[in-house]
Structures are given as structure tokens and as C-alpha cells.
């Protein structure tokens, strides 16, 4: 298989089309949706770029917190973490929990909405 153009290149090309060609020709609700679509593609590009590394480190932290077998998926580990919190076995006082959730959430918002004010507050 080849990847010329690569997935990010293809997504960028569609985003350029929306921004430079489609949007200027749209009005009202359609123009609004074009802006949303362009923002979505920007999120897709950040997700492609940042998720692999962010999820690898999230998984390492989850395994350290839950000390389970390493072959579980991140989704399964988050399910287990949620169950532990729901049952009261883990609370906001549990060492490392709040730090882990903060790091994970910051990585997620860096992808979803990097200019969100709450992210700035978390960094300060």
C-alpha cells in the first residue's frame, strides 16, 4: 500500500476546499455548518497527530493505577477505572488519580479544543 497523498494530506486538502472555495459561496446556516466542518477537520488532523502518543502514556498510567494485566485496551482500563471510582474504591484522595485524569484530559482538550480557556487554566 502507498500513502501519497497521506491521510493528513487528504484531510488538509478537503479543509482547504471548504475554507477557500465552499465557505465563501455559502450563506446563513450552510455557512455556519461549513465553519463547523472546517473545525472538525482541524480536530481530525490533531487527533491523527497526537492520539497515538497520548494514548500510549495514558495506558501506562492506567496500568500503574490499576495494576492489571498489560494486554487490556485503553477502553477496558477506563471502564475498570470508572467502576473503581463508582464503587468508592478510588476517590479524589487516591494518590495519583486526580493527576492522571488531569494529564489525560489536557491531552484530550489539546486535540478537541486547543484554545479552550479551561486548558490554559489547567496549565497555569
Amino acid at each position: 500500500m502507498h500513502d501519497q497523498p497521506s491521510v493528513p494530506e487528504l484531510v488538509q486538502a478537503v479543509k482547504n476546499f471548504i475554507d477557500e472555495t465552499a465557505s465563501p459561496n455559502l450563506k446563513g446556516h450552510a455557512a455556519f455548518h461549513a465553519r463547523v466542518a472546517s473545525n472538525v477537520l482541524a480536530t481530525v488532523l490533531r487527533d491523527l497527530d497526537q492520539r497515538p502518543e497520548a494514548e500510549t502514556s495514558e495506558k501506562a498510567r492506567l496500568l500503574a493505577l490499576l495494576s492489571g494485566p498489560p494486554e487490556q485496551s485503553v477502553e477496558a482500563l477506563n471502564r475498570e477505572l470508572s467502576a473503581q471510582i463508582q464503587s468508592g474504591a478510588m476517590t479524589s484522595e487516591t494518590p495519583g488519580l486526580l493527576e492522571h485524569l488531569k494529564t489525560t484530559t489536557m491531552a484530550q482538550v489539546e486535540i478537541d479544543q486547543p484554545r479552550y480557556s479551561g486548558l490554559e487554566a489547567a496549565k497555569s
Partner: protein
Amino acid sequence: MGSNNDFENALNALFTRVFGEKAKLEAFQRLSGGASQETWALSGSEQQVILRRSPGGTDAVVSSAAIGLAAEAKLIESAGAAGVPVPGVLHVLDDADGLGDGFLMSRVYGETIARPILRNDEFEAARSVLAAQCGAALADIHAISTDSVPSVLPLSDGLAQIEKYEEIYRSFDAPRPVFELTLQWLKANSSKPLPTVLVHGDFRLGNLMIDETGLVAVLDWELAHLGDPREDIAWICVNSWRFGQSQNRVGGFGDLADLLSVYNEKTGLSLTTKDIDWWEMLGSLKWGIMCMIMYEAYRSGADASVERAAIGRRVSETEMDLINLLEAAHA
């Protein structure tokens, strides 16, 4: 439903019915905003009015939490009588109008969109008085006798809301550890409910009409219910409703102390900024779960729009705010 022509004829008949034989509808235009309800601007030779009605003129209440347009009209009248700035209700639609559920109100002028209100120079003076005006309006809303409000209004205090939103969140079977932690933390740290009042339910920029002098009208009463007064005060403090101006806790424009000072004076309560913290956390959690609900409309195929898909990626902003609030609570 009927054709465009039927709609226009019904509007003409409505205009004559409400304003008399000589009144003539000259123009009508759909205004943007309000996915759950249609808002139309109607102009006559002497009248400028707003029609709010259910989409396509149906009679069904769209959102399960919404109280319905007839009840909304009644509430706006009660609020006006209590001194809350609201548009005047001119007519509540009935079967004879053939336009579905809705009501006609006077048109108020100003800006509802947060960005210009928070950033443009023309609103600078408004921003400096808005927190106090919001405190006064909320005090007046909360003083309305709960016996006089429409009986469809549900009773929903803090713990009831946690229960309701937890149930919705669990139904999606998409575990989010930050929401789990928030749910447990809120349950473990709740305070005694204050005496029940009429709660507006969506008091924030977007639903407030603002001009250069400040608050002109409190709009969008469809989520009104009976509950705890701190809910309304905290909702406008939720970081998502500060629209990027986080340093100003009230709506991105004001100090909570300024709002509370007027509010306490009018109500006789002695709320402090700390009393609002728990409710602000609940507000962020609710907004996060509301984003999940809106994304669910996309995931289930009910609404294929890119907007509904995209809002699923706004859930993380509320997780970020909740982490910041949990950290502050443990500091």
C-alpha cells in the same frame, strides 16, 4: 403541515385578530437560533412583534425537560409582573390560529450573542453593571410565588438533578472517569437544599437580551422549574458560559461578589461565593452530559448534521473544567 401560503394566511389572520382590522402584516422573517423552537419576527405598519412557536407548528413538546410554550408565556407574564425585565406577552396561540403551540410577544432590541457582548466597546458600560443587574433579576425571579406558576413545572433540586443526569449518562454506556469522580464527589459534598423557588433554568448569555445600558430582557424560559436558587446563580458562572473570558466568573463579564451583593440585599439571604462552588461543578457536569445527549442524536442516526457530531468533542471541555474545580476544592 400546510404550505407557505397557508402559513402566511394564518399569520395575516393572527395579526388582524390581535391588533384589529386595520392592522396589516407587512413582513415576516425567521430569526436564527433556537433549535427546539421557531422564532419569527413579524412587522406591521405600527407593530414589531416576535412569534415563538413549536417547529413546523406541531403541538408536541420537543425536549422532555421543556415546559411547553403556553406555560412559558404564563411564566413570562408572572415574571414581568414581578419586575423582571421580559418582553410583553401579547397573545397565546390557540386552535383558532392554526399555527400550533406558541405565543406572540413584543420585540425587544439588543444583542444576545456572547462574543460581541463580551468584546465590543459599545457594551463596555453594560458589562460594568451587568453582574448587579443579573443579581437583581435573579432575586426577582426567585421571589415569584411558587403557587402562582404553571403546574407543569417539575420540582428538581440538586440531588434530583444528579440522579437524573447520572441515569442519562449511564444509559450511554460510555464511561468517563472524570464524570464518575465528579458524581461521587458531588454526592459526598452536597449541602442542605435552600427553600424551593422558581428557577429560570437557563440563565446565561445567549438567553439574555443586552444593549449598551445592560440587561433588557430575560428570554428562553422553557427550562424553568422549581428548585434551589443557587442553581441559577451558578449556571451563568459555568466556565463554558464565560465564552473564553474565564477571569470573570459571572458570564465572562462580572464578579460573583457584585451579583451576590445585590442578590442578598433583595432576598435577605447571605450567600457567599463559596456557596456557589458545588452548583458550578454540577453545572459543568450537566453541560457535559447535555453535549453527550446532543452527540447521541448523531450516533443514533436521528440527526446526521456535522454540528451534532462535532459537539461530542466538547464533552472534554467540561471534563477540563471539572478537573480544575476538583483541584481547587482539594487545594
